[in-house]
């Protein structure tokens, strides 16, 4: 796939012409954007706009129909170590028999490598991260005994332990209390101030201008992307949240069928 010259090769995350489809129904259509270094960025858009899918596609967790994602100028599979992922809280079973400390220590697994057991140094790192999110007293609780906000902070602590340069977080603010929200924002700002890039799927339009300095308005395609002051406008919001993109959806659906048809025939 030829790359357009408009993309910045050093950008933490640059997405070129990304299209993702589920069962031939397009979820993301021709997404093209760069997230610059050291930004606290949010992705906003209505339900079903493909926000989570965008993160997952960047991480090769869902297959893309076409397009390409570069992380610091390289394909993601070569940059695993520099990317930290915080999945949606609902994506895991919180009755699983592990403690909060165990979950946070999972962030060290990459550096630890295969087959080596978690040792004291990993547990210490995990404990430090738990302190940063204010949960040191809950380290040995089984995770089902934590409140929703505490569970979200456990996930955040795990991301901190990963020590990544680019963080992709799927709704870290979903159903947390005000104190947790503030604690999370503080940690995200600290990360940004260290020069790291944080991309957050976000739901609450009220707090966009307060928390973030870069925004992507997404509804299947990118409606607007840029500094919050430029991109987060009433007009762009209307275009993102108002009216469904029915015509494009139909056209894309037809194209998706065509694409999967060609793949099949070229495979067969």
């Amino acid at each position, binding site marked *: 796939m030829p790359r357009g010259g408009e993309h910045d090769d050093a950008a933490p995350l640059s997405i070129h012409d990304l299209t993702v489809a589920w*069962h031939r129904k397009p979820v993301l259509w021709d997404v093209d954007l760069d997230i610059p270094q050291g930004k606290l960025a949010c992705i906003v858009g209505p339900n079903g706009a493909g926000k989570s899918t965008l993160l*997952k596609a960047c*991480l*090769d*967790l869902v297959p893309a129909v076409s397009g390409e994602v570069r992380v610091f100028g390289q394909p993601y599979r070569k940059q*695993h170590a520099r*990317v930290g*992922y915080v*999945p949606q809280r609902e*994506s*895991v*079973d919180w009755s*699983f*028999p*592990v*403690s909060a400390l*165990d*979950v946070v220590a*999972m962030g060290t*697994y*990459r550096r*630890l490598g*295969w*087959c080596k*057991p*978690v040792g004291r140094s990993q547990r210490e790192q995990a404990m430090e991260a738990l302190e940063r999110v204010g949960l040191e007293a809950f380290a040995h609780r*089984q995770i*089902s005994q934590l409140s929703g906000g505490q569970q979200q902070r456990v996930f955040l602590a*795990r991301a901190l332990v*990963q020590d990544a340069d680019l963080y992709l977080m799927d709704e870290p603010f979903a159903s947390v209390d005000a104190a947790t929200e503030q604690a999370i924002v503080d940690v995200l700002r600290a990360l940004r101030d260290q020069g790291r890039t944080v991309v957050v799927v976000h739901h609450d339009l009220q707090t966009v201008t307060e928390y973030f300095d870069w925004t992507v308005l997404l509804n299947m395609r990118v409606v607007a992307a840029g500094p919050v002051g430029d991109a987060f406008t009433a007009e762009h919001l209307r275009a993102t949240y108002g009216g469904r993109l029915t015509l494009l959806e139909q056209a894309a659906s037809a194209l998706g069928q065509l694409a999967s048809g060609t793949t099949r025939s070229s495979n067969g």
Partner: protein
Amino acid sequence: MSLDYDTLVVLVACVAAMACALPGVFLVVRGMGLMGDAISHAVLPGIAVGFLISGTRDSVWMFAGAAIAGILVAMLTQVLHRIANVDRGAAMGTAFTVFFALGLVLMVQLADTVNIDPHTVLYGALELTPLDTVAIFGMHLPRAMGPICVVLACSIVTIAVLWKELRIACFDPALAQTLGMRPELMHQIVMVLTAATCVACFEAVGSVMTVTFIVAPAATALLLSRSLSVVVGIALVLGVITAIAGHWAALHVPELFLGEGFDTSSSGAMAFVSGVVFVMALLCAPRRGVIARRLALRRLVFDVAIEDALGLIYRLEESNVEQTANQIPQLLARDVRVGPRRVQRVLSTLTRRGLAVVEHGVWSLTHEGHAAAAGLVRAHRLWETYLAATVDVPASHLHTAAERLEHVTTEALAKKLADATGDAAIDPHGRAIPPESE
């Protein structure tokens, strides 16, 4: 040295139970216990094809065939679920019944040429295993134990070496993927272990028993612990207990009902015992068990009744109305949360704890009792003040709300309430709010 018949039967069942428990924990913890069922049935065609190719009962071929069939059924389930968009349970059910049917057809076809019996595969022949022994270090051990021990050792080594990889793959596959921990591979390793375990255990305990040993100890252990390593340990121990108790029950329980000389199948009894153990754990598990939760609830209700009694005496003392003899028990009997049945127990607890004393049927609070009651009444009236000021609650509803809230108000919360109400001294009904105790 030779061990007696019953010891050998129990020994075979024990190693089989432990071998099954290990992959079982990793299946059950993912909510895929049924996968054990699916695989144990689905390996049948693999075994049959193994016979067909090798023409012998050589276990290496059986293992290879079964392992491949096990992975195929796991993959077919995945394909049906992901690509054809079929519900996971339905996908599993479809995949394994197809494989099982195929296996049965092959088995019946082969029955003339190879010495194999579908009936044995289903129900096993635990009672026959001590008849075919090999000498190891001078001990005559059942031949059937050999493959089971090998599989058990493989499981132990795999789980010990890949502990954190298996655990993260079960808990958070998406994160495992981004950390490069290959959750799909881990999942397939568990499938292979399950398939190998099923084959190894078939001859001894049969596929139905194998399913029991895979699912029941793991499910029971999950009720009893909140740490995966402890869950694995408990599942192993429970497997052994089930095997021993099951065999004992098979020998002795039918005698009770049918008289001398009757006994029943050991595998059947073991399956039954594992069910009994699960139900017992469900009832008796600390904290999460039905009984523990019931008791905790009753203790809570009783504590609330105690607090109601304290509050009642405090309010009567506060109002300076002369208490008539036995007035307190009568009033408490009308309280919905104390009620006539609990009055005596509540009042005797008050005296036993040194919170109140009784003289000629008249109750009064001790110093400790007064402090405790003041704290409760303080919480109650702070809530009334707070609710009246912040929430638009009609005055007549304040009392009921505060009545419930006072029992769950900690000291810290009471402080916050006091701050929020500007350290109010009078509640909305004009009664004094007791000051904070020292």
